[in-house]
């Protein structure tokens, strides 16, 4: 029957067997046995019982799991030639960059890209980069929380000068809810789009005013000007495919010959897309829409005009080197979008550490 020290050494060997090179494993196990036998032999004088002496020596040495973790941490000091903490930080940084890019391109400043493959690729790369913090934590058998906090907070702080340099927002007379801007690196592409928007919005305003006036006094459709009774011409005039049917709450109306103001407000994007009019097949409905929605859409168009004019002015100033460091609206969402990832990184890191604990099970070792 094996003595306690032999059993201990066997357990330690089983835990480390597939984790370390054979020569290092052999050295660790032999050294543990040497230590335990010497420790037990010195204790025999005090306790007289050799088995009890061995048990006490083992207690002082520590459980095989604890000792194994210490050795594994040392073995995991380097990962591809660097401290694993650097890889964890790099993974977090790539995720932050990709997801911010993904988010910005989809929703805000680079909406020109639209929902393209670049967005999906960036999102996937961000997801794949998370394997680095996981691998780093498992490699070290300990958390990389300090590296993760440092890189996330650092990236959030750096995003302020970065976005301030990169993006051109609307600043003066900025309407609430108008969170659009253009890239400093795409001025040639985006500035003409903004200027075209300004011209379109002015034309929209004229048409909406005309619609409000016409429908206010009209009792039959014959009194409505031709353009407001020709959705396809309005669509062509403003470069839109077609005017869809007016939607009011859950009521689905049918598209028709009457041009009506959009129930959910006029909106325009920096890339030139606009949403101002819809169509209906019923005169009474059109009359009601022009009376109730028309004025609010007109106010929306005023806001949009102010916003795009501000972007145009800023873009012209940016050409002469103006930066936008004092525009918190520009970077607040980017900073929050970065910091909000920190709990995710820390949770992944913690789970990776927990899942890396050796469990002391021999995994299919063949004993000759």
């Amino acid at each position: 029957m094996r003595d306690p020290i032999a059993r201990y050494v066997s357990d330690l060997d089983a835990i480390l067997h597939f984790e370390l090179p054979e020569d290092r494993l052999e050295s660790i196990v032999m050294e543990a046995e040497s230590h335990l036998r010497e420790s037990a032999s010195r204790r025999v004088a005090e306790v007289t019982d050799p088995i009890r002496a061995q048990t006490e020596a083992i207690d002082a040495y520590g459980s095989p799991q604890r000792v194994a973790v210490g050795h594994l941490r040392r073995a995991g000091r380097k990962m591809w030639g660097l401290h694993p903490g650097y890889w964890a930080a790099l993974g977090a940084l790539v995720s932050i960059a990709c997801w911010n890019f993904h988010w910005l391109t989809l929703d805000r400043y680079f909406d020109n890209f639209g929902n393209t493959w670049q967005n999906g690729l960036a999102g996937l790369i961000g997801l794949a980069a998370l394997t680095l913090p996981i691998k780093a934590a498992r490699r070290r058998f300990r958390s990389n929380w300090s590296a993760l906090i440092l890189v996330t907070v650092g990236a959030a702080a750096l995003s302020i000068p970065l976005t301030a340099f990169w993006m051109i927002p609307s600043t003066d007379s900025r309407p609430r809810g108008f969170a659009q801007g253009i890239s400093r690196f795409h001025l040639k592409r985006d500035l003409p789009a903004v200027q075209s928007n300004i011209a379109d919005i002015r034309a929209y305003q004229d048409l909406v005013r005309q619609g409000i006036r016409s429908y206010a006094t009209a009792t039959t459709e014959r009194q409505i000007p031709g353009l407001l009774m020709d959705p396809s011409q309005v669509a062509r005039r403003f470069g839109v495919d077609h005017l869809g049917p007016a939607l009011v709450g859950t009521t689905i109306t049918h598209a028709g010959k009457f041009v009506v103001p959009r129930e959910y407000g006029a909106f325009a994007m920096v890339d030139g897309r606009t949403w101002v009019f819809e169509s209906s097949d019923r005169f009474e409905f059109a009359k009601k829409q022009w009376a109730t929605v028309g004025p609010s859409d007109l106010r929306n168009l005023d806001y949009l005009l102010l916003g795009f004019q501000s972007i145009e002015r800023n873009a012209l100033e940016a050409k002469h080197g103006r930066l936008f460091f004092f525009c918190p609206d520009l970077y607040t969402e980017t900073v929050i979008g970065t910091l909000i990832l920190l709990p995710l990184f820390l949770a992944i890191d913690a789970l990776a550490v927990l899942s890396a604990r050796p469990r002391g099970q021999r995994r299919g070792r063949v004993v000759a």
Partner: protein
Amino acid sequence: MAFRGDIKAMVLGTLQAEPLHGYEIVRRIRESGGAGRLSEGQIYPYLHELEEDGFLTAEWKTDTGAAPRRVYQLTPNGRAELARHQETWRKFVSGVGSVLGGEMMVKEVRNA
């Protein structure tokens, strides 16, 4: 009260006078109280790390009459590293001691 010092520095200091085997190094560190809650087995990874970094060399001795022992000794780099640790420690004790009022201790450290 259990405290935990810089284990690597303590290992280097323990080997300052003579080469020692693992059990003896661990025993001396444990007796100093500087290992804190570390078990004896948890000190060995530090020995191996110092060896990997070139501060120690180790050799199995089988001619001791007892079980084989792995004996460690300082390399020249290890001595330089120890001197660096000692200097840092002197500054630390001197600085903290001057604030906390341990005049005797500060003098001892300065004279060491």
